[in-house]
């Protein structure tokens, strides 16, 4: 062992309680005001906030000032149910009318596309997930890349996968896909062509095994 090393032996700080999370939300509300639309606290687990599209960048600044210095990830989500189903339905069964209603998740929302990010406070051992609506017609939000340097690549990925633009991002080139690739793969209306050509062969997986009676609650939960 070298001499120039430090080790940590002190006990970890107490796990954050919900009081801390409520305090964080109140603090954020004090910093950005009406831009904070909604918040949700899962007891003893996690905290979500939703901000307006215009409040996305100020919320990031406020969070960084509030001690959330560790950038975890940034991504997008498309809340529209896939028009193609999951592609694993029984081909013989009666086709079910696909559900087309857009239902947003925790903390709600008004648009089909949302961006969400997670930042962590390493001192207080607490993370926060922050969401914002993205206008369907002009899917653009402000960039975080000058705020959190790590957001640069995440925004490139998000732009490539969802077609969400980021104002002020230095370089929104494709990262994963060839430049001539068309479409935004993670949008729900992007079809997986291989699945259209060939039905999902894994349908047999969810059928009961021959030797077992098909009781609903068995100890064996696996189906792979």
């Amino acid at each position, binding site marked *: 062992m070298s001499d120039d090393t430090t080790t940590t032996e002190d006990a970890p700080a107490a796990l954050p309680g919900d009081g801390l999370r409520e305090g964080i939300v109140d603090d954020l509300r004090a910093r950005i005001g009406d831009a904070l639309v909604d918040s949700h606290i899962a007891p003893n687990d996690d905290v979500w906030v939703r901000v307006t599209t215009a409040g996305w960048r100020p919320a990031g600044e406020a969070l960084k000032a509030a001690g959330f210095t560790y950038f975890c990830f940034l991504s997008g989500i498309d809340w529209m149910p896939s028009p193609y189903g999951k*592609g694993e339905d029984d081909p013989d069964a009666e086709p079910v009318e696909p559900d087309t209603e857009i239902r947003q998740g925790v903390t709600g929302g008004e648009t089909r596309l949302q961006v969400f990010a997670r930042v962590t406070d390493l001192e207080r051992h607490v993370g926060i997930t922050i969401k914002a609506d993205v206008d369907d017609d002009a899917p653009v939000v402000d960039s975080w890349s000058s705020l959190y340097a790590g957001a640069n690549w995440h925004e490139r990925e998000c732009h490539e996968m969802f077609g969400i633009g980021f104002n002020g991002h230095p370089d929104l080139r494709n990262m*994963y*896909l*060839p430049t001539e690739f068309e479409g935004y*793969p993670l949008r729900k209306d*992007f079809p*997986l*062509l*291989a*699945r259209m050509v060939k039905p*999902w062969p894994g349908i047999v997986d969810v059928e009961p095994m021959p030797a077992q009676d098909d009781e609903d609650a068995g100890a064996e939960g696996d189906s792979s």
Partner: protein
Amino acid sequence: MGLVDKGRLPAPLTKLFNMSRSYSLWVYQWGLACCAIEMGAAFGSPRYDVMRLGVIPLPASPRQADFVCVSGTVTDKMAPAVKRLWEQMPEPKYAISMGSCANCGGPYWDSYSVTKGVDQILPVDIYVPGCPPRPEALLEGIVLLQQRIKNEDMAAKWRGDEFTTLQRTRAVEAGEVDRDGELIAETHSISEDPTPDARPEPIVVGGGPIE
């Protein structure tokens, strides 16, 4: 060698050439994904020791290699590079496709960015199935490739024909088999010698279908 070109080389000499080729194979390791680690274990670890089979896993460039082991997922973005690499290799050259992804897309059969099998871009001689295959399976693939090389009719290859075995050429010359004769594809085992007209098709280790 003009003699070989015309297919006039005496059979024992061809066999000798083929045997020398099959036991000094320089392999270019085109490691792409998980299989690359198992390939590294087969080629680089003391436990599996591929050099005892006469395979040298050290060429620095595809231009020095006799066969390429494509191990792992080939994506659409990577495919041009794989094709370029294959073009850089000098003839005679062979390809082993290692792992389900390189064989047919594997777990990413429905992905939007994965090439469904490296055989779409280069001709594959040996398929090694598995996800990833054990190093032993790759070694068996190499042994099968050596058998294939030992029985190859190089004159046919240089004429631009498909892969043909020596025995098959002889049989065609003797009028026993039609050139487009029906091919027998059966489960192959290392112990038995390939029969005259068997296995001009690519070989699958273990004998099963790729999918």
